[in-house]
């Protein structure tokens, strides 16, 4: 299945057949209630399956966005009708939804978002643009954060919508970047959204976004990625004999310890979810910790492999089929997306340590 076709430059790594195959078996939404197409399993069991899928190298961005973020959102705040309409096809792998929060002027500062939704008597008209979203080109719906009124504060008056992406007035354009997954720029020019597709309370989306964001941050997918990168590097060091150099062994052992500690943090969050007592500060710590180790692994790969590590999978002679080169392109985005490292540190400092300006 791998092969050059799949890995061609600008070819999205998502595997639609595999995704639907998993959906048919009920392996996408294992933690959801059975009545919505889920498996009724616990967060721990869900995490075990996610870990195995990631370890097998199955691209997970569609899964993370559709099931783990939007699906969870609907479970938290959706109406009965919304859950019945959207969740089962999502669980079957037939419906893909992307997350559309970020705007050109609202990145870390989501409260600065400017997309507007205007009530026109029987529905909402969306105007605005969303940027840097992943998998939107594959999605039928987008979870959009938009302003429905000017509030007392910038965090008031934000509402969430499930907006159809095949509707008139939606323009989805690629924003090519150095990673293997394309960014999208989505422009809404008066797109009509049914009031039935408002998720959660009108004007009151801010808190919902934050609740969902922290649940998004178990860090499991990050940990598995780090494990795969580092295991590949250690395996290469063993095979080439470099591991017998104590400086190399020591450095890899230190990284291995960090990855293992990251795993412990991640599973701590998962068990908190299981008990329904999530600690937001610990979730921020897990996200920060597991993603920051990425750049150190990438650096170690370059130091150990030398210039071999800069060869891409398209070169044909790259070690580990170009994994180190791909990791070098992927690592910077991990400490930016889903909450930058700076925002994580701010949460830890402010909410965890009580350090506020």
């Amino acid at each position, binding site marked *: 299945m791998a092969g050059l076709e799949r890995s061609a430059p600008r070819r999205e790594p998502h595997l639609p057949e595999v995704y639907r195959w998993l959906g048919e078996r009920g392996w996408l939404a294992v933690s959801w209630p059975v009545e919505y197409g889920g498996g009724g399993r616990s967060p721990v069991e869900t995490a075990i399956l996610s870990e195995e899928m990631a370890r097998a190298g199955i691209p997970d961005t569609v899964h993370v966005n559709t099931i783990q973020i939007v699906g969870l959102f609907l479970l938290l705040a959706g109406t009965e009708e919304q859950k019945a309409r959207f969740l089962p096809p999502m669980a079957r792998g037939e419906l893909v939804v992307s997350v559309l929060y970020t705007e050109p002027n609202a990145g870390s500062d989501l409260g600065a978002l400017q997309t507007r939704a205007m009530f026109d008597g029987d529905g909402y008209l969306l105007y605005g643009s969303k940027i840097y979203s992943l998998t939107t080109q594959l999605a039928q719906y987008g979870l959009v954060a938009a302003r429905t009124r000017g509030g007392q504060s910038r965090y008031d008056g934000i509402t969430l919508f499930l907006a159809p992406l095949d509707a008139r007035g939606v323009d989805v354009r690629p924003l090519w970047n150095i990673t293997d997954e394309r960014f999208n720029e989505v422009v809404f020019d008066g797109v009509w959204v049914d009031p039935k597709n408002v998720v959660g309370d009108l004007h009151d989306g801010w808190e919902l976004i934050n609740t969902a964001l922290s649940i998004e941050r178990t860090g499991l997918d990050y940990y598995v990625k780090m494990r795969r990168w580092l295991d590949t590097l250690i395996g290469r060091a063993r095979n080439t004999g470099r591991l017998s150099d104590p400086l190399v062994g020591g450095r890899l052992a230190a990284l291995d310890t960090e990855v293992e500690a990251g795993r412990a943090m991640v599973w701590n969050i998962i068990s908190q979810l299981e008990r329904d007592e999530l600690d937001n500060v610990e979730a921020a710590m897990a996200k920060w910790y597991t993603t920051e180790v990425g750049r150190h692994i990438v650096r170690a790969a370059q130091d150990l492999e030398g210039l071999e590590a800069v060869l891409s999978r398209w*070169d044909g002679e790259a070690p580990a089929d170009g994994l180190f080169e791909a990791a070098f392109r992927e690592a910077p985005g991990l400490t930016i997306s889903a909450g930058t490292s700076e925002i994580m540190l701010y949460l830890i400092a402010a909410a965890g340590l009580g350090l506020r300006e």
Partner: protein
Amino acid sequence: MDVRLGDEMRLLRSVLARFFAQSWSPETARRAEPPMGAQAEAPVLFDGELWLAFARLGALEAGLPVEAGGAGLGLTAATVVAEEAGRALYQSPLNETLMVADLILSGGGGRRFEPLLAEIAGGRLTATPALRLRGDDRLDYPEETALKGLVEGGGSGRLRVGGTRRFVSLGRVVDYLAIAVRLPDAGPASASVALYLIDRRRAGLEVRRQDDVGRGELASVVLREVAVSEDDLLVRPDETERAYAEALARARVRQAAYLVGLSRQALDLTVKYAKEREQFGRAIGSFQSIAFRLAAMAARIQAARLLAWNLAWRSDRGEDIRRPAAGLAAMTGELAREVTAESLQIHGSFGLTEEAEPQRFYRRAAVEAMLWGTPAELKEEAGRLL
């Protein structure tokens, strides 16, 4: 210790800065980059005319000695040139060619190539060392990684050389390749390797592009029974260790200057962005968590920059700079990788897009940081010389 630049150097720097500002805009530079995943046979996008214009401004001439047709401004001038090239993220055979020029001038047996120096000074002739097989091959001991030479029959005194050299910088662009060859019947291992300078188009040579994250010009060169003779001798075996070590140290100082320039530009871009980009109602650069990181990088870059000038000056005075040059190359290699990674972090997702500058600096830094030895190898080497 005087590390101020004289008037000539400042003039050289401003001339080059103007040249790049006019002729090498980010848009032009991006057009000269192949797309991600380009093939081994992808066309060479190196602009020969631009290179000649660069040379006409004295880019190579400045550092070459007067007797070689140069301006005699020494390694200091070459570091000024390299730093400006780094700021512009201009990939060219500047450093590679100057290293070969240093080998010609080393008195190691390459006198026959002296007429080439005027051509080198004018940019009309370029060369690059082709010394590695693997990406982690050490560069400091050519005898460890030298190609094997076999004596050709009939007492012709000629050799046949076979093997593969990879990660040859600008390998598809240059006119000449410098190779290290282990002689078949030489004496002790330490003096059995000679350096030869051969035409890239010589029979038996096959050059193909390597696809690297920097989207630059790295090449893999396959040599099949390539004929090499006395006429190609660049450095005699008994001179290799000394001449090569000196030339490598000087190349590392120039590379360090290139990386300083690259880092400075990445920092400048980021400082500018941090002043303009507003989040939470203020410029992100007004947050200390951003500002102090930028300030620390500025200080580290300045430290490396001053050390590069200092080493250039010491080398021009005849001092042995092998150890500090390896140490500085390691330091700037790490600095460039860290500064460009921080630049991406501070720019956020925008910095990762194809049309953004920060990702280009990040990708190029990875390659440039290792071209003259990986930081790990360089530190080890400097440690051995302590």
